[in-house]
C-alpha cells in the first residue's frame, strides 16, 4: 500500500476524494508543523470531528502528542526526508495507532490506523507468556523451599506481580479444626486485624473447600462475605478466593482483593488457580518430606544420611545423641570426622564400601569406651548413603549367654552321653553275663537231673520221677525266659535303619514258617497284598512273627480258625484272629513284659512277645492297640511310617 502513495501524490493541496475514501486516518503538516489537511477518518480517530484544525499548529491542537514519540518520529522523518513507520499509544485518545510518515520538502503526510485491539492482544499474549514463565519459575523454587512461610510469600509475590491488586493474603487451613494455622499477607494490609478463620459464611466456605474458586465483585453487598467493610477501607471492592489443595481437602486459602475489573478478569482467576496448583504440589511434597523426617525421628534407630562425598546431610535426634552432639553440629561434617573415635574408622570403611559397590551391608561393632555393641545397617542410594545404628548390647549379651549355655549344654550332653554309653556297656556285659552265666547252672540242673534219673532211676518210684521231671521243666522254662528277655533287650538296642519293607511279603513268609512247623494245623490265613511301610526289616519281621505267631497259637482250639493280616489305612496294619481272645478289662496289661492273660498250661509263652511288639512299634514312632473279647478273637492294630523319617 505504501508503494502506491508517493509523497508527490500526497501534496498538501489540493486533495481529492480518493484520500477521503481511504480507511486510514490521514493528516498532513507543513514544514512549520501547521495542519494543512486531515481526512474524515483522521478526525474520527483523533476524536476531533467538529474542530477546525486546518491551519492550526499541530502541537497546539494535540498537546499530549509531545508526551509520546509521535513528535520525535515526525521530526526525524522530515529532517532525514525518509519515511518512517511505528506503533504508538496516543494519549490524546487513549488508542494505539500504527503510523506511517512520508516526508517531502514541504512537510509530512501521516497515515495512521487504529491497532488498539491488536496491541492489547499482543500485550495480553506477552503477559500470559510472562505469567507462564513466572509460574514455572515459581514451581522450581517452591519445590525446594524449606520454609512454608517463604513459600507462601513467594506465591503472593507472584500473584501480585501479575494481578494488579493492592492486597492479597494466603492462609494454611486446618479443615478439622476449622481455622487458620499460619498466614502470609502482601500489599497494603495495614490496619487489617490478623485473621483466625476465613471471612466467609459456612456455605461459602464449604464451596471454597470443595475446590471451587469464588469471585465476588462487590464484597460489601455480597452475603457470602462476613466483613466486607474491612476491605472498603483499602478501597477494594472485589475479592478473588482460590482454594489451595486437592480433592481430599484444602491445605490453604488464597485471597486477592482489588477492583472489579481486575478481579473479574477470567485470565487473572486462571492465573491465581495455576499458582494454587503449584503451591499445592509444593506443600504436599513438603508434607511428605516432613513425614519422612518425622518417621526418621520417631524410629528407634539412630539414622544418618550422607551425600556421595560422605558429607553428612541429615541425622536424626538419636544419632545426635549417639555422638553426644547437636544435630546442627553434625550436619555438614564429613563422616571421616568420626574416624577419631575407636571403631569409627571401621564403620566408615563399610560406608565407603557401600557407596562403591552399591550394596547394602550389615555389621556389628564394639565400642570399648562405652562397652556397648552396635549394629550398623548401611544402605546406598542414588546420591549417597544412609545408615541405621542400633544398640544391640543386650541382644549380644543374650547371644553370648546362649552360646555359653549351649557350650555348657553340650558339655552336659557329652557327659550324659558318656554316662549312657557306660550304662549301655554295663547293660551289654549284663546281657552277656545273663546269656552265659545264668544258663550254665540251668544246664547243670537239667543235665544232672537227667543223670540222676539215668543212673539212679531204678531207686525212684513214679512220683520221684515226676518230681525230677518238674525240676527239668522249670530249668527249660527259665532258659526260655532268659532268651526272651535277651531278645527284648536286643530290640531296644538295635540301631534303626529305615528302608522300604514289604509287609505283605514278610507276613506271608511268617505264615509259611508256621505252617511248616505245625503242618497238622488247619488255619485259613488271609494276607492282603501290596502292603508297604518304612522300617527296620529285622524288627518288622520280629513284630509280625510275634503277632501272627500269637494268632496262630490262640486259634489252636478254635474250629475254623482264621487269621487276617490287612491294612486299615496307609501305614496302619492289623492282625486279626477268631481265637481265644482276651478280656478288654486287661487290655492295658497286654503289652507289659512278662504279663500274661493265660496260664502257661493253657497257652505256652514267656509273656515277652507283645512287649517286644510294642517296643518295636514305638521305636518306629508308631502306635499299637488291641481289641478283643474272650472266646471271640483279638485284633492287634499298629502303625508304621509310610516314608523314611528325615535325618533330624
Amino acid at each position: 500500500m505504501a508503494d502506491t502513495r508517493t509523497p508527490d501524490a500526497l501534496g498538501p493541496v489540493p486533495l481529492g476524494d480518493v484520500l477521503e475514501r481511504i480507511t486510514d486516518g490521514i493528516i498532513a503538516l507543513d514544514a512549520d508543523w501547521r495542519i494543512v489537511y486531515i481526512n474524515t477518518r483522521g478526525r474520527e480517530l483523533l476524536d476531533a470531528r467538529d474542530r477546525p484544525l486546518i491551519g492550526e499548529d499541530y502541537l497546539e491542537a494535540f498537546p499530549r502528542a509531545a508526551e509520546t514519540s509521535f513528535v520525535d518520529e515526525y521530526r526525524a522523518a522530515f529532517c532525514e526526508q525518509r519515511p518512517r513507520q511505528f506503533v504508538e499509544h496516543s494519549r490524546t485518545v487513549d488508542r494505539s495507532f500504527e503510523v506511517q510518515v512520508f516526508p517531502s520538502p514541504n512537510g509530512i503526510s501521516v497515515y495512521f490506523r487504529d491497532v488498539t485491539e491488536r496491541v492489547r492482544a499482543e500485550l495480553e499474549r506477552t503477559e500470559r507468556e510472562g505469567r507462564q514463565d513466572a509460574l514455572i519459575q515459581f514451581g522450581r523454587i517452591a519445590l525446594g523451599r524449606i520454609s512454608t512461610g517463604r513459600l507462601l510469600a513467594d506465591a503472593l509475590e507472584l500473584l501480585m506481580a501479575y494481578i494488579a491488586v493492592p492486597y492479597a493474603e494466603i492462609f494454611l487451613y486446618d479443615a478439622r479444626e476449622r481455622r487458620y494455622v499460619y498466614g502470609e499477607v502482601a500489599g497494603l494490609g495495614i490496619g487489617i486485624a490478623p485473621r483466625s478463620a476465613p471471612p466467609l459464611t459456612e456455605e461459602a466456605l464449604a464451596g471454597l473447600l470443595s475446590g471451587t474458586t469464588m469471585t465476588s465483585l462487590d464484597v460489601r453487598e455480597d452475603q457470602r462475605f462476613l466483613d466486607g467493610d474491612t476491605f472498603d477501607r483499602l478501597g477494594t471492592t472485589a475479592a478473588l478466593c482460590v482454594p489451595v489443595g486437592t480433592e481430599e481437602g484444602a491445605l490453604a486459602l488464597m485471597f486477592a482483593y482489588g477492583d472489579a475489573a481486575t478481579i473479574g478478569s477470567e485470565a487473572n482467576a486462571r492465573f491465581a488457580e495455576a499458582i494454587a496448583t503449584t503451591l499445592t504440589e509444593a506443600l504436599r511434597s513438603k508434607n511428605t518430606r516432613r513425614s519422612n523426617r518425622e518417621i526418621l525421628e520417631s524410629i528407634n534407630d539412630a539414622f544418618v544420611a550422607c551425600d556421595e562425598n560422605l558429607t553428612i546431610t541429615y541425622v536424626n535426634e538419636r544419632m545426635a545423641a549417639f555422638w553426644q552432639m547437636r544435630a546442627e553440629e553434625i550436619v555438614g561434617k564429613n563422616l571421616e570426622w568420626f574416624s577419631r573415635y575407636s571403631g569409627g574408622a571401621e564403620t566408615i570403611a563399610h560406608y565407603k564400601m557401600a557407596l562403591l559397590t552399591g550394596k547394602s551391608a550389615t555389621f556389628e561393632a564394639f565400642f570399648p569406651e562405652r562397652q556397648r555393641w552396635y549394629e550398623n545397617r548401611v544402605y546406598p542410594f542414588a546420591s549417597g548413603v544412609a545408615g541405621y545404628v542400633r544398640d544391640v548390647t543386650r541382644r549380644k549379651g543374650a547371644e553370648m549367654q546362649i552360646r555359653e549355655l549351649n557350650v555348657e549344654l553340650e558339655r552336659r550332653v557329652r557327659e550324659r552321653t558318656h554316662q549312657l554309653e557306660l550304662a549301655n556297656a554295663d547293660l551289654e556285659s549284663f546281657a552277656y553275663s545273663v546269656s552265659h552265666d545264668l544258663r550254665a547252672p540251668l544246664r547243670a540242673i537239667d543235665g544232672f537231673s537227667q543223670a540222676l534219673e539215668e543212673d539212679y532211676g531204678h531207686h525212684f518210684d513214679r512220683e520221684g520221677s515226676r518230681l525230677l521231671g518238674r525240676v527239668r521243666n522249670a530249668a527249660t522254662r527259665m532258659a526260655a525266659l532268659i532268651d526272651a528277655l535277651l531278645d527284648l533287650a536286643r530290640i531296644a538296642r538295635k540301631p534303626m535303619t529305615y528302608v522300604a519293607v514289604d509287609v505283605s511279603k514278610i507276613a506271608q513268609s511268617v505264615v509259611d514258617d508256621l505252617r511248616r512247623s505245625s503242618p497238622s494245623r488247619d488255619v485259613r490265613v488271609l494276607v492282603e497284598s501290596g502292603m508297604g511301610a518304612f522300617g527296620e526289616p529285622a524288627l518288622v519281621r520280629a513284630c509280625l512273627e510275634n503277632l501272627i505267631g500269637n494268632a496262630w497259637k490262640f486259634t489252636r482250639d478254635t474250629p475254623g480258625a482264621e487269621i487276617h493280616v490287612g491294612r486299615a489305612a496307609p501305614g496302619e496294619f492289623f492282625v486279626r484272629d477268631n481265637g481265644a481272645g482276651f478280656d478288654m478289662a486287661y487290655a492295658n496289661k497286654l503289652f507289659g513284659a512278662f504279663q500274661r492273660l493265660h496260664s502257661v498250661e493253657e497257652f505256652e509263652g514267656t509273656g515277652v512277645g507283645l512287649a517286644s511288639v510294642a517296643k518295636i512299634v514305638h521305636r518306629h514312632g508308631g502306635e499299637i492297640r488291641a481289641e478283643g473279647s474272650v472266646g471271640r478273637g483279638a485284633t492287634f492294630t499298629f502303625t508304621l511310617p509310610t516314608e523314611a523319617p528325615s535325618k533330624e
Partner: protein
Amino acid sequence: MTSPYVLLIEDNEDDIELTRRAFARNHIVNDLVVARDGVEASDLLFGGEPDKLLPQFILLDLKLPRVSGLELLERIRGDARTALIPTVILTSSKQDEDLLAGYHLGANSYVRKPVDFNEFVEAVRQVGLYWLVLNQPPPVDKT
C-alpha cells in the same frame, strides 16, 4: 599225649562233666583232654616238645578266665601248627556278635549249648560224628 584226643577248653566243671557224659552217651571213645582256660590251652597247644600230638578237634568255650575263647581262637588260627585243627565253638552265648566274631576268626562250627541235656547230647553227637567220623582231616605234614 599218645592216642587221638579231643581238646575241650572249658572252665565250668558242670559243663565239663556234662560234656564227658554226652561223649559217653554217644559212645565217643576218643580221649577228652580238658584245658580250664586260654592260658592252659595255649601251653598245651603251643608249648612243650614240637613233635607232640595235636587234638583231632577242639571244643572251645568263649567265656574263659584270663585269655578269652576268641583270643585263643585267633592264636590257634594264626599258628601254622594249629591253623588246620577243626575248632568248634561250644558256648552258652547266642549273641550275634559272638557268632560273627567266631566265624570271622575261622571257627568251623558254632554250637550253642542247649539247657536241655538231651538236646546237648544230640549236639555233641552231631559234632562228634561230623568231625571225628565223616570229616577227612587235613594231611599231616610228616617232613
